[in-house]
């Protein structure tokens, strides 16, 4: 009965979404205020019903109700509780239900909290949000019902993809989804503002916290996903330009651009059409990403739930929403004034360059991701685009981007002087020159891109602190702190990437027991290999002793795990983190002579990559708190209901 209750709640929520769209539409076009007043409570109840459906699914997974097909296919009674719980969204149907739940809850939150916008624009926004929700409800109810029964119920479930059995990954998809859905709200605001022709500072201020929130979550999601791939796949790399990785990177790039242009619109009334366009593009990238991952038209090592039929459904949704929004944009944006003017050399100017560079990188990633598909449809041949393309095409642009990032925050709004800006940058430039000299002296054979990366990271890191110079630090607004920390985080990440790519040492050997091997500053010895049993896997576990110089020896335990259902092997790298880097040890198979495949990496300062990502997210978070607090002080509370 419980599963049926969940399905009923989902149907009711879908009906309410239809009602919300219809009443919002009529209310906006006929200006009837009674209709307008009804839309907000509907949005809130719809959110509650979807939430109930999602809680029901979690309950079914946690209690391992095998009479539900989805549970039988993705759950097992032997699984640890955390993964029963996370198994709810570790599959296609469950993740789609999670998506629509977050979407509806976000709509409800807009209905409750939004007070800056004009009433008509708000209702148009809620109608747009309901329209998006409606498509996903239809998708769930007609193409991928999570509550479908299985008769007869099997004695045991098939378990969860072992690659997904990791605490980090249990919370990775929800983080990304929250980010994607935050962008859906920005999209709905853009559609609402186009419908009522009300693209102004109120619209920008209403949209900004959602963009900022989405961007923070995407940043966390990408950073965590990268670290997960690094330690779980056992390949020693941290970014593979895999279509699934690109699917989350593309919305992040668009959201980063949007975040900066929405600030120009909120503070200076400039870049109106461009901001609306970016809001549409950012959500489009979320949808395109979902489509690519779900439809099976691109092969990836970790795409799951691929099915052309579902792909067709998502493609139809894509066509309606993105096509519709772009058509609306074409029809309406002509009536939107472009807003305040500014000089090329100004804060706005630097933000425009930032936007163009981000868009160019986005284009490069999009083309690289889709190229195999385009080539196939034209020539009928299958191709794949590898990291060489992405690195060489996007790398230099990213480098220029961070340099612009250093200059932007210290420039004045409206107009500034190039010479004065460069003077303000003198100390960071000096530091960069010093680093350049030092690196060339100490590491003569270094490749050009990592070298420039290290140099830029030093200069940009220092320059990003510049907005704090000469300020009373205790009176500096929180959002300025946020910007400074986020920019510093980018520089820190970049230092980590450059250092990892320039100075990584690796040793790959067939190791005999007791034989010492060297990697970087470490001496590593394989002492023993023993089989061990986990809760739902068996593994071979190596005992490895490592010693740095004459330091204290320590023991590491890398594992190769074997999961029975479905049959999969995963590598659990043993990683030791020290202040100046990480020692990364993986043990593989044995050969005929009883030697074990031992893979060792010494990665100097690799942790800076993710520490930087954390700083970027922290900066975003401080900025969000600062902005919201400021808005609360300035906007009067609105009567609710």
């Amino acid at each position: 009965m419980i599963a049926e209750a969940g399905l009923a709640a989902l149907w009711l929520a879908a009906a309410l979404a239809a009602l919300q769209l219809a009443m919002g539409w009529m209310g906006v076009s006929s200006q009837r205020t009674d209709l307008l007043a009804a839309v907000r409570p509907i949005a809130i109840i719809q959110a509650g019903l979807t939430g109930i459906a999602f809680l029901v699914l979690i309950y079914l997974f946690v209690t391992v109700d095998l009479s539900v097909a989805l549970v039988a296919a993705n759950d097992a009674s032997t699984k640890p509780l955390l993964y029963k719980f996370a198994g709810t969204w570790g599959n296609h149907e469950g993740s789609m239900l999670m998506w629509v739940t977050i979407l509806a809850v976000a709509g409800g939150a807009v209905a409750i909290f939004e007070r800056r916008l004009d009433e008509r624009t708000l209702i148009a926004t809620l109608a747009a949000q309901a329209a998006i929700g409606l498509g996903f409800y239809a998708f769930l109810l007609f193409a991928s019902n999570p509550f479908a029964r299985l008769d007869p119920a099997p004695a045991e479930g098939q378990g969860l993809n072992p690659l997904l059995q990791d605490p980090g990954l249990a919370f990775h998809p929800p983080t990304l989804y929250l980010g994607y859905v935050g962008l859906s709200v920005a999209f709905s605001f853009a559609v609402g503002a186009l419908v009522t022709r009300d693209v102004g500072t109120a619209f920008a201020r209403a949209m900004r916290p959602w963009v900022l929130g989405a961007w923070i979550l995407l940043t966390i999601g990408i950073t965590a996903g990268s670290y997960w791939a690094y330690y779980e796949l056992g390949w020693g790399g941290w970014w593979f330009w895999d279509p699934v990785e690109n699917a989350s990177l593309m919305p992040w790039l668009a959201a980063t651009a949007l975040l900066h242009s929405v600030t120009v619109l909120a503070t200076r009334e400039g870049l109106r059409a461009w901001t609306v366009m970016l809001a549409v593009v950012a959500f489009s990238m979320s949808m395109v990403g979902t489509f690519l991952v779900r439809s099976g038209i691109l092969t990836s090592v970790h795409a799951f739930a691929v099915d052309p039929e579902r792909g067709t459904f998502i493609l139809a949704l894509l066509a309606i929403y993105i096509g519709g929004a772009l058509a609306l944009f074409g029809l309406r944006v002509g009536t939107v004034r472009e807003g305040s003017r500014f000089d090329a050399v100004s804060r706005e100017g630097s933000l425009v360059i930032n936007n163009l560079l981000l868009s160019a990188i986005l284009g490069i990633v999009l083309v690289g991701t889709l190229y195999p598909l385009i080539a196939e449809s034209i020539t009928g041949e299958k191709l794949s685009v590898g990291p060489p393309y992405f690195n060489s095409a996007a790398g230099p642009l990213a480098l220029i981007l961070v340099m612009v990032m250093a200059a932007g925050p210290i420039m004045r709004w409206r107009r500034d002087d190039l010479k004065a800006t460069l003077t303000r940058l003198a100390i960071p430039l000096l530091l960069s020159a010093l680093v350049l000299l030092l690196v060339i002296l100490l590491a003569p054979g270094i490749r050009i891109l990592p070298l420039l990366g290290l140099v830029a990271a030093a200069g940009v890191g220092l320059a990003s602190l510049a907005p704090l110079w000469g300020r009373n630090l205790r009176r500096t607004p929180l959002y300025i702190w946020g910007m400074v920390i986020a920019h510093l985080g980018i520089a820190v990440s970049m230092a980590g990437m450059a250092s990892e790519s320039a100075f990584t040492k690796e040793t790959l050997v067939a190791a005999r027991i007791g034989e010492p091997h060297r990697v970087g500053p470490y001496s590593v010895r394989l002492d023993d290999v023993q089989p061990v049993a986990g809760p739902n896997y068996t593994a071979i576990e190596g005992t490895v002793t490592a010693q740095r110089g004459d330091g204290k020896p320590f023991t590491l335990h890398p594992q190769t795990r074997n999961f029975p259902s479905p049959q999969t092997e995963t590598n659990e790298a043993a990683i030791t983190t020290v202040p100046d880097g990480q020692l990364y040890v993986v043990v593989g198979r044995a050969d005929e002579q009883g030697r074990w495949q031992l893979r060792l990496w010494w990665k100097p300062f690799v942790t800076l990559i993710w520490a930087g990502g954390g700083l970027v997210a922290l900066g975003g978070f401080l900025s969000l708190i600062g902005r919201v607090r400021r808005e609360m002080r300035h906007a009067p509370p609105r009567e609710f209901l």
Partner: protein
Amino acid sequence: MRKLLIWLPLALFLVFLGVFASGLISPESKTIPSKLVGKPMPGFALAPGVPGKPGLTSAELTNGRPHLVNVFASWCVPCIAEAPQLRQLAEAGVPVYGIAIRDRPEDLARFLERNGDPFRAIGGDPNSSVQIALGSSGVPETFIVDGKGIIRRQHIGAINPEDVPGIMSALGDAR
């Protein structure tokens, strides 16, 4: 001009939509017969792709036994996913030959150490010329070739665990 710019995003999006749709409509089949299936391997002679291992010439492939020719690259992520299956096939006694596309010897050596080395010989194909002659356009891709050097089957994309029995039986048929 401005009018055109405004409608440009929609136009671009429609193009993408068309591409997506055609990608969905064309059936995703893992065993697409290429023009070369049933024909002999084109003639080629490739230098060793990695030091310490022989290169590959087409003459070697007419040695009277059925074998696999795997087109791969160290920068290709699906090739990593495929590696265990190739090792499994090699351990079962299947002669596996490799053609490494647009690769550098040091990257290749690292790839082999990391993912195992099932190959009897690896030819380096730095500018994809042999790949193009083979009618292969992506990595990974695998050809089942019989003892006379006739291509019997082409497997596009990574060899997944469930593909292994089919490949074994196709090799049996090629005897």
